[in-house]
C-alpha cells in the first residue's frame, strides 16, 4: 500500500535487544496495511503523550451478547484508518494445545478479516484476535466458528477457562483436567455468551497443588487436583537422585522443607511400617519415611525428587471458591469448599458440574451488581454460601475456628445431632 508510515522514534527503541519485539511485528503488518500503519501511529502517540486513547462501546456477533471487546479511537481524526480496533476473544482448546494446520488457518482468517495481530493468550486464557473493524467482526467470527472455535466470555458472564498441560504430559496430574474443563464450561455456554450474571465468574483447572493455572488467586471456582492415599515411591529413581545430589541436599532441600515435618530421614532398619507410612531407600543404609496422615500434599518433595516420589493413586480434586483480583475489596484467595471430590467415574465429573451449577445459580440470585463470588461470600459469610449451594461444612475449610465470641449458638445441639446422625449413616 502507498500510505506513508508514521515516524515512531519511541517504538523504534523497542526493536533492539534480544527479546522478540512486538514492534517489529507491528511494523511488518503496517508495511502492507493502512489499518496497522495508523494503529502504530496511535500507539506512538500514546508513548509520546503517556496516555491511552481507546474507549469501549457495543460490538458483537449475531446471536451472542458478549465475547467481543469493542475499541474505538479517541484520536481518530489523527489516525482514521484504525478508528475501530476490536478484539475477538476465542476459547482455546484445554491445555492450549494446537497443531500447525489449525494455527495457519487462524492466520489466514485473521489476514482476511483482521489486523493480523494475535495474542497467545490473554490473561483470561482467550486467544485474542486483536484488531478488526466493526464490519469485519462477524465475518471473522463466522470463519473461526466454522473452524471449530467459539467466542469466549466478556462482561458479567462465565468467562473463558484455563487448564494446565495436565494428563497430556505431566506426571503430577491428578485428574483429567481437559475433560473437566470441557464438561464444566460447555454446560455454561449460555451464561458465557449472553451475559446476565452480577459480574464475571471464572473457573480454572489445575492438575495438582502446584496450581500452574494460578486458580487459587484468580478463579471464582478453582479446581485443583490432589490425592488421599500415600505418596508413591520408586527406589531406583530415589537412589539415582541421591547419587547425584547427596545427603546435604536431601536433608536441606527435601526433609527440612516439608511444611508439616511429615518426612524423616532414617536408617533403613529403623523405618516404621503402617497403613499411612510410605518409605523408600535412597542408599544401602538410609531411607525416607513419610507420615502420609500428616502430609498436606504441598508437592514440594515430589517436585524435588520427581519420579522417586509421586502423587498417590486415590485421586480427585479440592475445590476452592472466591479467588479474585483487586477490584473491589482487594485480592482474595479462594476458600476450600470441597476438601476432596474423587474424579474417577462419569458421575464424579457430573458432580463437579453440579457444584458449578449450584454456585452460579446462587451467585446469580444473591450477589450484588459488580460483586465477585469472593466478595459475596465475605458479605454474607461462608456458612450462608455453603448452605445455599448444599455443601457440608468441614474443619478443612478454616485456618482456625472463630476467635471472636459474638455469635448466637441456639442451634448448637441440633447441629451436633445432625453431625452425629451423618457420621452414623456413613
Amino acid at each position, binding site marked *: 500500500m502507498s500510505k506513508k508510515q508514521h515516524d515512531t522514534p519511541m517504538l523504534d527503541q523497542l526493536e533492539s535487544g534480544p*527479546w522478540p519485539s512486538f514492534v517489529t511485528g507491528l511494523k511488518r503488518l503496517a508495511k502492507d496495511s493502512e489499518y496497522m500503519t495508523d494503529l502504530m501511529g496511535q500507539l506512538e502517540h500514546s508513548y509520546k503523550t503517556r496516555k491511552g486513547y481507546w474507549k469501549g462501546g457495543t460490538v458483537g456477533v449475531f446471536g451472542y451478547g458478549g465475547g467481543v471487546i469493542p475499541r474505538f479511537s479517541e484520536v481518530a481524526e489523527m489516525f482514521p484508518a484504525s478508528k475501530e480496533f476490536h478484539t475477538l476473544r476465542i476459547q482455546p482448546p484445554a491445555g492450549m494445545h494446537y*497443531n500447525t494446520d489449525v494455527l495457519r488457518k487462524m492466520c489466514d482468517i485473521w489476514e482476511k478479516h483482521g489486523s493480523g495481530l494475535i*495474542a497467545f493468550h490473554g490473561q483470561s486464557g482467550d486467544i485474542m484476535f486483536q484488531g478488526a473493524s466493526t464490519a469485519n467482526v462477524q465475518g471473522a467470527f463466522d470463519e473461526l466458528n466454522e473452524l471449530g472455535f467459539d467466542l469466549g466470555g466478556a462482561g458479567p458472564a462465565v468467562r473463558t477457562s484455563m487448564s494446565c498441560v495436565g494428563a497430556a504430559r505431566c506426571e503430577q496430574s491428578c485428574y483429567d483436567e481437559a475433560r473437566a474443563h470441557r464438561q464444566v464450561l460447555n454446560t455454561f455456554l449460555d451464561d458465557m455468551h449472553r451475559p446476565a450474571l452480577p459480574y464475571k465468574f471464572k473457573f480454572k483447572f489445575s492438575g495438582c497443588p502446584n496450581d500452574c493455572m494460578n486458580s487459587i488467586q484468580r478463579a471464582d471456582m478453582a479446581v485443583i487436583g490432589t490425592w488421599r492415599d500415600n505418596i508413591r515411591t520408586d527406589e531406583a529413581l530415589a537412589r539415582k537422585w541421591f547419587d547425584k545430589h547427596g545427603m546435604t541436599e536431601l536433608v536441606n532441600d527435601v526433609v527440612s522443607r516439608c511444611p508439616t515435618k511429615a518426612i524423616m530421614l532414617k536408617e533403613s532398619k529403623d523405618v516404621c511400617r503402617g497403613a499411612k507410612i510410605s518409605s523408600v531407600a535412597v542408599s544401602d543404609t538410609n531411607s525416607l519415611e513419610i507420615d502420609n496422615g500428616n502430609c498436606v500434599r504441598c508437592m514440594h518433595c515430589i517436585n524435588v525428587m520427581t519420579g522417586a516420589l509421586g502423587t498417590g493413586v486415590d485421586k480427585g480434586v479440592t475445590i476452592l471458591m472466591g479467588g479474585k483480583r483487586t477490584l473491589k475489596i482487594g485480592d482474595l484467595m479462594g476458600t476450600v469448599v470441597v476438601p476432596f471430590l474423587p474424579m474417577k467415574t462419569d458421575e464424579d465429573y457430573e458432580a463437579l458440574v453440579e457444584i458449578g451449577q449450584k454456585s452460579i445459580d446462587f451467585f446469580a440470585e444473591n450477589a450484588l451488581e459488580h460483586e465477585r463470588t469472593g466478595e459475596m461470600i465475605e458479605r454474607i459469610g461462608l456458612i450462608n454460601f455453603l448452605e445455599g449451594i448444599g455443601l457440608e461444612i468441614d474443619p478443612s475449610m478454616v485456618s482456625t475456628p472463630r476467635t471472636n465470641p459474638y455469635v448466637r449458638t441456639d442451634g448448637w445441639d441440633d447441629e451436633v445431632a445432625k453431625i452425629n446422625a451423618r457420621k452414623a449413616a456413613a
Partner: protein
Amino acid sequence: MATMRTPIESGVPDNKQYLHPLMARNYGNWKYHDRPRPGVLHHVAHSGDQIWTVRAGTQRQMDLFTIRKLCDIADTYADGHVRFTIRSNIEYMVSDPTRVEPLIEALTTNGFPVGGTGNSVSAIAHTQGWLHCDIPGTDASGAVKALMDELHEEFIKEEMPNRVHLSTSCCEINCGGQADIAIIVQHTKPPKINHDLVANMCERPTVVARCPVAAIRPAMVNGKPSLEIDESKCMCCGACYPPCPPMQINDPENSKLAIWVGGKNSNARGKPTFMKMVASGLPNNAPRWPEVSAMVKKILTTYKADARSWERMADWIDRIGWPAFFEKCDLPFTKYLIDDWRGSRASLNASTHIRF
C-alpha cells in the same frame, strides 16, 4: 457486512485432535520428568515412551509472520504440534532426542530465546496497556519487552534459587496477576470530572456503588446532575472510570509505577501468598522504563545472591524478615507500606519476633 448466521455454540474445543500422538498415547500415564538443560523438559511415561519439550519465549502479541514462522519451525522439527504456556511461552514436543538441538538452533536463530524452565525468570504475564485497554496508565507489551531484554540471560539460564514469575499490570485493577515480582501502575491523583458530560454518559448510582472507599457522591454542579469526590478519601484506583469516562483518571505526569513482591500461587512448602507493595513513585518513563528495570534487577540479584535453594521470593523473605529485605534491596520503608485497609491488623506484628 456478512449475512446473519446462527453461531455453532461449540464451546471449548476437544484438545485430543491437536495433541502430539505420543502424548495422546500416554495420556494420564506419565511417570517422571527431568530437565537435560535450561529450556528443555524430558518426560518419561510408565510405558517407557519419552518426549522432549523445548520451550521458547514469544512476544505474546504476534503478527502473522511470527506465527507462521513458529509453525514452519514446528513442521520442520516437531511434527507440527505446539502448545502455549500461561506465560505465553511456546512449547515444541519431539519424540526423537536428536531433533532437540536442531530445534533449539532454529528457534534461537529466528530470535526466539529458549528457556523459561526450572529456576529461571520466565516470560512476564502482562496486560494490554496502550495497545488495546480503555483504562491503561501505561503500556504493558513495551514495558515487558524492555524488561525481558534486561533479563534475557536469566530466562535462558536456570540460576535462580527457585522459579521466578513476573507480571505487569497497567493499572491497579491488576489484571496481570500475582507474581514473585509485579510491576503495577498507580494513579496518584483523584479523577478529574468533566461535569458537562456526567449526566449524559454515566449511571450515577452505579458509579457511586463502585467506589471501594465511598468517596463518590451525587451532586448538582452548575445546575446539572453530576458527581463529586471527597478527595481526602479517594485512593485513586480508577474503578469509577469504566462506568463513567468523564471521570478521567489517566494523567501523564502523575501515573507512577509500583513494585510488589512475594506472591505465589503454588501450595509448595508454604500456603499460597499474596504479593506485597515494596516501592512506589517510579516514573512512567516510556519506551524503556529504565528506573523500573533497575529496581526489578536489584531485587532479583539480591534474591539470587541471598536465597537458599528452593526458596521462592516469598520463602526467602519469610526466612530473613521484611526489615532485612528492605535493607538488602536498598529500598526505603515508608509509612505508605503499612496497610490501613480492611483487615489490616492481620498484617501487623503482634509478637516480639524481631531480628536485630
